[in-house]
């Protein structure tokens, strides 16, 4: 019903503030992640710390970066595995 009313009154798209909020959300994820160069370094170090508990990785080759997609932003980690450790704990 609201939908029809909206169309009658010529409002087909979402109110522009919703668009503004969504765009801001995405741009701020990116800004906040890239403003400080140490930020991604810190994440990388901690990720390496966690992963090495489970597998042998090429620490030099680890890459952590922020990627912009169409409607989202992703943290992408590329972690080359050398060798898996044998599962210690039962899952």
């Amino acid at each position, binding site marked *: 019903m609201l939908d029809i009313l909206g169309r009658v009154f010529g409002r087909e798209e979402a*109110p*522009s*503030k*919703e668009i*503004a*909020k969504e*765009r*801001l*959300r995405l*741009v*701020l994820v990116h*800004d*906040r992640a890239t*403003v*400080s160069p140490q930020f991604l370094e810190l994440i990388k170090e901690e990720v390496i710390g966690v992963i090495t508990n489970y597998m042998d990785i090429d620490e030099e080759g680890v890459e952590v970066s922020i990627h912009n997609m169409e409607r989202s932003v992703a943290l992408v980690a590329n972690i080359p595995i050398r060798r898996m450790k044998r599962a210690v704990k039962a899952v």
Partner: protein
Amino acid sequence: MGEAIVITSGKGGVGKTTTTANLGTALALMERRVVLVDADIGLRNLDVVMGLENRIVYDLVDVTSGVCRLKQALIKDKRFNENLFLLPAAQTKDKTAVTPEQMKALTGELKAEYDYVLVDCPAGIEQGFRNAIAGADRAIVVTTPEVSAVRDADRIIGLLEASEMPEVQLLINRIRPSMVKRGDMMDIDDIIDILAIDLIGVVPEDDKIVVSTNRGEPTVLDANSRAGQAFRNIARRITGEQVPLMPLEAEHGFMERVKQLFGFGR
């Protein structure tokens, strides 16, 4: 010992100078002793907004470079007894004429004399910004409800946090209730949600700001101005009073007027 508060924003033109002039005047009206410091070196503005442009003899750089004593450079605003003073920015120098250490010393000296030292910060994140925040105990970040202004406010908040500013608060300026109502302007909650920061107040868009700037009389002196009322409320919050946010819409909505017309006014 007084408090130094920097009024800053990131994006230019969102209302820092207007805010500095109005909060300073409102605090002076509350019998606080206030000094306004124009830290926008090279683009001095606060003097004209205050209507004091014809009284400038010395400026901030004259003080920091030892050309005159601090007292000599302070312009007394005669409208407010001994309560309101302005330290104008230099117009001919550039922002590198002052260092953060000098600004810190200067605000320290002023805090010893005055209850509030309000520093009007230049736009941007360069040296002028670093100078303006150097001696501050609190920062008020001004934004408008637009994507670019909020984005720059986020950046500034990050920088203020990194520089260990003890207190950072947000002021949302130029909100337009009718646009918020139709969903075409972000509202207070949207912005607070995005920036995750304390709110010191909200100032509506108001033509009276332009009129009062033309006259060189801060809007807080106009009892009928909504923006003036908002600034007076913010000044009270600065002194620690609890003041609720005023409703965005004026009380006289359509139904109110109809009721009054028929004698049912509250």
